[in-house]
């Protein structure tokens, strides 16, 4: 059996011999034997350190609450993919890949925070002041301030504020101070503009805590998104075992997600297919008229 790696890389993360697997210098089996947990492993992996107990408690809290969010884009991806009955990992992978600039944009929020904390340092301003500057700069530029608002939990994500409070209890620092300032000034400005209050979401709360725990924006994003992969796997498994493949059966008492009646079409009206003899003239005219441009995506 060939046990050589596929390609050569110098790595500071881990090595594996016939005798042991070692991550950041620690024998993995010894870590498990000593009672270290999955949460500790995240600190060792991404930060090359053994975490303090309060940090582990915060990470346990956050990953525990972040794992399940019922029907979000990622769960819908997993369910959609498993409808074709591929191997389960395909559905789980799809769910993780669903996270981007709208669904769980953790890394972007982290970079935003770093930029403004650095500016506070360089410009000699307080974090509180910098929160206002951030809000004003984003809102003046017509940009969405990350970490606020959730399309389903209109009165505020039920996880978010408790996460802030737990964060205060366990590991409060500069990130939380900035995030709280952002929330305060964002809503003060909205109030002045006659707009309603927008609560912190799980990026604003969760990512801030992960940043405080020392995770880079990318590492924090990884933790959040991959964590959700667990529950998406449960949704996919449930659908695979108890749902009907394809999601279009007429025999189900409830209309299925891919029932034909679920399709609402808003494109060009049905039209004749031109013959090949007509094609060139037809295409030329279509291009000249330019009506097609409104459908280009």
């Amino acid at each position, binding site marked *: 059996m060939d046990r050589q790696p*596929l390609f050569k*890389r110098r790595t*500071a993360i881990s090595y*594996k*011999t*016939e*005798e*042991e*697997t070692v991550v950041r210098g620690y024998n*993995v089996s010894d870590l*498990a034997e000593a009672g*270290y947990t999955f*949460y500790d*492993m995240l600190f060792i*992996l*991404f930060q090359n350190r053994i975490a303090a107990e309060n940090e582990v408690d915060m990470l*346990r809290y*956050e990953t*525990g*609450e972040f*794992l*399940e*969010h*019922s*029907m979000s884009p990622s769960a819908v991806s997993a369910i959609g993919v498993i409808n074709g009955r591929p191997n*389960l*990992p*395909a559905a*789980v*992978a799809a769910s*993780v*890949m669903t996270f981007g600039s709208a669904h769980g944009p953790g890394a972007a929020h982290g970079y935003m925070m770093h930029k403004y904390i650095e500016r506070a340092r360089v410009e000699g301003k307080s974090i509180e002041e910098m929160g206002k500057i951030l809000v004003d700069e984003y809102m003046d530029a017509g940009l969405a301030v990350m970490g606020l608002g959730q399309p*389903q939990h209109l*009165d505020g994500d039920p996880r978010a504020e*408790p996460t802030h409070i*737990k964060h205060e209890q366990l590991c409060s620092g500069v990130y939380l101070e900035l995030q709280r300032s952002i929330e305060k000034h964002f809503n003060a400005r909205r109030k002045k503009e006659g707009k309603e209050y927008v609560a912190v979401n799980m990026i604003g709360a969760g990512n801030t805590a992960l940043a405080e725990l020392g995770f880079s924006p*990318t*590492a924090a*994003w*990884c933790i959040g998104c*991959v*964590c959700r*992969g*667990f*529950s998406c796997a*449960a*949704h996919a*498994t449930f659908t*695979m*075992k108890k749902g009907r*493949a394809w999601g279009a059966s007429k025999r189900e*008492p*409830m*209309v*299925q*997600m891919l029932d034909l*009646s679920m*399709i*609402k079409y808003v494109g060009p009206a049905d039209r004749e297919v031109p*013959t090949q003899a007509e094609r060139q003239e037809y295409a030329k005219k279509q291009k000249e008229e330019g009506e097609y441009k409104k459908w280009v995506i």
Partner: protein
Amino acid sequence: MGNLDDPRLMYKYRTREHGTVEADPKRARFQWVSEVAYKNVHRIVARGYDTTELVEEGYGLTDMLFIDFQSRIPLIEEEQMLNYVMVCMFEDGLSSPANIARIVASGKTLLTQAAGSSILAFGHAYGAYQTFGKMLDGILAKQAKEGKPLEEVVGAIVKKRLKDPALGVSNLMLKDPMAKRMIARAEKLGVAGKYIPLMKEVVKAAQKLSKEPVDIDMLGATGAVMLDLGFTPEATWCILSVTRAFATGAHYCEENEQEEPVRLGQTLTPKEWYDGPADRPVPTLEERKSVAKAMEAQTPEEWKQIFLERQKIKGSGWAIVEEIDDPKRKI
């Protein structure tokens, strides 16, 4: 138009209806049906438990895995054991998931593409938890049905699957004690059920049949423990592939930090690695008529000959026999 007037067609293509299908008022409207979780404006509930209340009460991710997949709060020992398994499964050096994540990262992609793609490494050989679990369940079902001694049933199955990468027994962990320590820990914590003793029988049978030294490997240890913790083979497959995906995020970071991105067209394949047909001139489209030959078989005999010829073409896929099983199928 084309073949659309062919009388063999099932209906008249020229008079087909236009427009979308009306909603069926006799059936319930579509809803996302779930036994796992729901949410409303103020709550997220998994298997009946409010998730915010769970974490406020001190439950964590590992408890949530029992709740989501098994609809229950785990015993403390079970939660400890799951943590133990996940610590051991977290990182595995430059193995397939890390390699995939690094290759995807080298294209300058999002972290989620790299970490997500690493999960795709888990199949029916690497991290073959579904196949492995079904094998163990199959042994138990067979023994219950046939009433033969367990040792005999295990021996027969292991004989057939000695080289199967999903057996859970191999030469991979002969010098590394991690797999055996994991089994010992499960026994010490009192979470061993029927699968760990069964796995021990599998190991015993494999050691008797194998000419080479073999022992329980990480698939065998983690798989048996997870099944004894009450996770199904499918849940195990999901949980452990996702566990590994966290660490591939670090590989994604390191690849971006330490290596140059790879551009389209950049990577060369040395000619000395090539063992396909010798270089040859491209025929003109005119010459094609005399050079090219259609490959349709008219008889089963012709088909067989063509089939065997095609199997010689590396990369054609004809030499692979893969049955895409319905994963829902019960043992």
